[in-house]
């Protein structure tokens, strides 16, 4: 269920306010990183009540409602930064807002930063934000990750799990993982 503005905090139980948000376009090569990490996490872990794991695609400023009312947000996305494809970069809230790392390479640059500022202005912004970013090799029309970014999926997922543990809501690994459903890679 999607939280509604300032009411969101009241609507959720106190512990129910951590979200893992995968961003990116599954039809644009390495931009599928965020949705892929979400699918891997869903297949391999069970999450405690109050932790939601969502593939949001490329919502731009429409990210706002998914941030409203959260205590903590963990965003997984490709980032434009100096470095080799497949490198994982972590950014905290203040770094995202103070020194914008151009967190999007694909067609919706204003997304994260503007959405964070908007919820903050409305008084419902998450206090804790972690951006788990991966440097892409290629963001072009097409389905499938490059080898470099494919190799970063595990570390990105691990960074999410570590952060959830730090927030006191560690997921538990499934004894037998569910099948991984990357539907966009099916032919």
């Amino acid at each position, binding site marked *: 269920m999607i939280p509604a503005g300032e009411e969101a905090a009241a609507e959720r139980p106190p512990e129910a306010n951590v979200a893992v948000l995968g961003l990116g376009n599954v039809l644009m090569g390495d931009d599928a990183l965020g949705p892929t990490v979400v699918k891997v996490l869903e297949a391999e872990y069970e999450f405690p009540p109050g932790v939601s794991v969502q593939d949001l695609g490329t*919502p731009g400023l*429409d990210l706002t409602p998914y941030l409203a009312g959260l205590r903590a947000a963990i965003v997984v996305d490709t980032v434009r930064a100096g470095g080799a494809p497949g490198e994982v970069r972590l950014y905290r809230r203040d770094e995202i807002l103070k020194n914008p790392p151009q967190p999007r390479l694909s067609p919706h640059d204003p997304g994260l930063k503007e959405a964070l500022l908007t919820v903050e202005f409305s008084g419902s912004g998450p206090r804790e934000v972690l951006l788990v970013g991966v440097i892409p090799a290629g*963001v072009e029309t097409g389905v499938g990750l490059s080898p470099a970014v494919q190799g970063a999926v595990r570390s990105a997922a691990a960074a999410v799990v570590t952060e959830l543990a730090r927030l006191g809501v560690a997921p538990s690994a499934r004894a037998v993982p569910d099948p991984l459903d990357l539907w966009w890679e099916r032919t």
Partner: protein
Amino acid sequence: MSQRITVDPITRIEGHLRIDVEVDGGTVKNSWSSGQMFRGIEEILKGRDPRDAWLFTQRFCGVCTTVHAIASVRAVENALNLEIPINAQYIRNIIVTAHCLHDHIVHFYHLSALDWVDVVSALKADPVKTAALAETLSPWPRNGWREMEKVKARLQGFVAGGQLGIFTNGYWGHPAMKLPPEVNLLAVAHYLQALEYQQKALKVVAVLGSKTPNIQNLAVGGVANPINLDNQTAINMEKLFMMRELLEEVRTFIQQVYLPDVAAIGAMYAPWLGYGAGVTNYLAVPDLPLDTKGTKFDLPGGTIFDGNLAGVKTINSFQDPYFRDNVSESIAHAWYDGDWDKHPWDEDTVPNYTDFDAEKKYSWVKAPRFQGRPMQVGPLAQVLVGYASGHELIKKYADQTLATAGSIAKTKLGPEVLHSTLGRHAARAIRAAVMADLALKHLNLLIENIGKGDVAIFVPPTFPAGEQRGFGFHEAPRGTLSHWVIIRDGKIANYQAVVPSTWNAGPRDEKGQKGPYEASLIGNPIADAEKPLEVLRTVHSFDPCMACAIHTVDVEGNEIARVRTL
């Protein structure tokens, strides 16, 4: 002495649009609209199962997700000549209306109000005077002085913290900003409240679509929402009543906040009811079907040429050849291989980038045409088609909005002022009011039909051998969207999406006819070439969303406008 101004990027949301204008004597004399990213996502669909197409098409764009899903299932159903259960039409219609309400509210308050509202000026406002002014405009209970004081304090805190980044594109202090501080404060208060109401609309999409932003409940042949009034996971009474409550709240916000705000801004910026008309050929498609086949609708579609409302010609069904046979796309000035004007079924998408050359090719966006004419699409097109063809709800809210704006401006305003930059905003608010009423109507139709014992939601499609051609249209928040599919032996052989921002943002065609963005900028005043706020006003009034019009990586500069003297 004339100047050339390049504005790049102009969208606040997805995608990259570049606008070039030539300014002489403080007025725009010529203009070019250029999409800066290659589009070619349809190629991914070739060879796939047509039943899966909607899952992929709703990933074209992260903002306009549901609309591509809807157009896609309609296109495949059209190819198969498949009628879907009436419950499925109603459920889709509720999703369409709720998504649209969310989208129109976000566009006005969060993506374009800053073109008209000077946020920093709101700091000078008197909260008590603001509340008194608001009372003359609307009975909305959240316009009280305590609320205004709270908003002003929050804004002060935000500005003191140096966090104006959210308003970066808002040229505060610009000479073209005309609202008094109190109106600016009221607008900021409504900016914040609008966040809550757009989320309520989105919640309705989530209830039916099971997830947002990418809904999961569609299928070629209907929907995947089981209806069982006694089952927690199915569509049940609790969910139906929850949706009604949410939609009623959103309707109140639109009637008491959005419509009066737009009327007030229209009245206070009256000169902008005279700028920005551009292309006055309009195209809208009918939507919100009321039968299984798509021959009766609650929203009107049709064409108007040269602003002549009396000559309106309606589009009457999902099968109407008047739409099917008259759409084409020209690549005379777009970076694709060749120089043709083709029907969407016959198109290909072979990129061939050459530099920006205003005389030759200068955009990744193709130029769609209807009977060879450029067409403006969007809420204004639908409102004008409805007004011209006697659509009751559209007439009611259009006349009401024009009367409110007229009484504030102390003049009489007729529908002719809608052919303008602010007319597009007014039309979007009028359409939102119509949609809010129709959302509740279709929810009631669904409840009544379930009450009769009909719980059918799906008709399984079968794909015969050989070739089928289909088209599906949808009047999306940004205007007419159409998907065109060719199916061969059960697989997709060709797919094209002709999207609203392509109609509006497209370049010139082989005859040199300008696209709607380009034409609408001619004659706009420019007070300060370094800060071309007026260009943003006119282009933003179309609600540009370029991600589905075009795609891929682009290098983004930090500067917003470049100016050079010719």
